[in-house]
């Protein structure tokens, strides 16, 4: 049994490895971009809209509302980053319903990559909003400059906790289904699969919201 899709390798030359994580990530990316393109190529500004447009509008609007609620700021600058985090993780998790599919979020490399993106997004948004001096003074030299090491550890621990939480949940869900299939193959795997869908969606929400909380903390003056 593979603990992570990283271990399923399709092609390798030197350090370049094309594993299941990358392949399924591209699959999810292609699916999202294609669906978005199909819907948004014929958008309507009138009050009569297609169901696909309606779905995407509800999704984008919902993400925007959540961001605004958490950050108390205008959501437009954060929608692409936070929205993509949520949509990518959610779709990656939801597709586990398809047999043979390996969720990229079940790979610690993927969750670490996403956490690293959040780790760099926080100072980028913070500096963009407050300026570099103000940002570093507020988040690394508070309450006293002596706390700098602890602040740095705090920022890293945020990133690690984000990545490990998501990886652990998704991986465990997949593992539980796999174990149950071998123990009680008739009924329990279905329940756990359904639970896995719910857990996956909740994890996507938690990841995106926590990322937004960290970014909001870096962009507000309080």
């Amino acid at each position, binding site marked *: 049994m593979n603990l992570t899709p990283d271990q399923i390798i399709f092609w390798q030359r030197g350090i370049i490895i094309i594993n299941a994580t990358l392949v399924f990530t591209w699959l999810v990316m292609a699916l999202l971009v294609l669906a978005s393109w199909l819907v*948004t190529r014929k958008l309507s*500004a009138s009050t009569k809209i297609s169901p696909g*447009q309606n779905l995407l509008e509800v999704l984008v609007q919902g993400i925007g509302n959540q961001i605004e609620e958490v950050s108390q700021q205008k959501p437009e600058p954060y929608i692409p980053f936070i929205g993509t985090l949520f949509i990518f993780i959610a779709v990656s998790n939801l597709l586990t319903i398809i047999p043979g599919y390996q969720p990229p979020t079940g790979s610690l490399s993927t969750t670490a990559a996403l956490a690293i993106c959040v780790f760099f997004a926080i100072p980028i948004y913070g500096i963009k909003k407050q300026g570099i001096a103000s940002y570093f003074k507020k988040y690394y030299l508070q309450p006293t400059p002596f706390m700098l090491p602890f602040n740095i550890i705090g920022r890293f621990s945020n990133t690690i906790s984000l990545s490990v939480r998501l990886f652990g949940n998704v991986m465990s869900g997949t593992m539980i289904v796999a174990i149950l299939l071998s123990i009680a193959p008739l009924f329990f795997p279905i329940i756990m699969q359904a639970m896995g869908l719910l857990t996956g969606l909740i994890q996507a929400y938690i990841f995106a919201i926590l990322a937004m909380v960290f970014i909001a903390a870096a962009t507000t003056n309080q």
Partner: protein
Amino acid sequence: MLIDPFTVIAQIINFLVLVALLKRFLYKPITQAMSARAQKIERQLAAAAIKEQDAEAKKKLYLKKQRELETQKQQWLEKARQEVEQEQLKLRQEAETEVNILQAQWRENFASERQKLAVETRNHLTKQITFTARKALVDLAKASLEEEIIETFIERLYHLNPLQTEIIYTTAIPYPQHIITIHSSFEISQEKKERLITAIREQISAKAEVQFEIKEDVICGIELRDRGYKISWNLEHYLTELETATARVLAENHN
């Protein structure tokens, strides 16, 4: 090892590419469409607000016009009512005038008819009384009415009242001819004429010339006219009294 560095780097790139692609194909078009719709709705709301204001203004205008029309209608109705009242009054006055004229005409006609009737009655009564008196006289004294009238008249000549006597003796006798005319309603016999002439010459003037004329308006009688005085006997006095009594009875019956 659970973390593969190449996969991590590749996934970071993948994620950033996905962010860029979704920004291009999802967020941007969707937010633009939503923004466009919001603007469109805002424009529509603004247009609706303008139209509402316009409608409100028109409503006020039409309400004002309606009130004006109502006022005008009331004025017209009041004017029409006054005109009708005036016309009614005018027609009533005309009708009253017409009725008064007709009433006056009727009264006039009635008076005329009454007058005519009175005259006819008088003539008829004269004839009837004359006839009756004549017959009574003939039956009682074998005398004719005319003769009795002349005798009564002669008797009256011999018994003139003081006023008549004063006029006769104080008024100058016409010169060269003193003509005294006797009017009667009937023919006087020659004998009675001579007796009358004798009585006149004895009582009034010895040189008087007496002329006899028959006049219809001397009602069953005889009269003498001379120098502004008159000596007569006829039925007119009786008839006038009778006529007055008859008219009074007619008037009482009419009322």
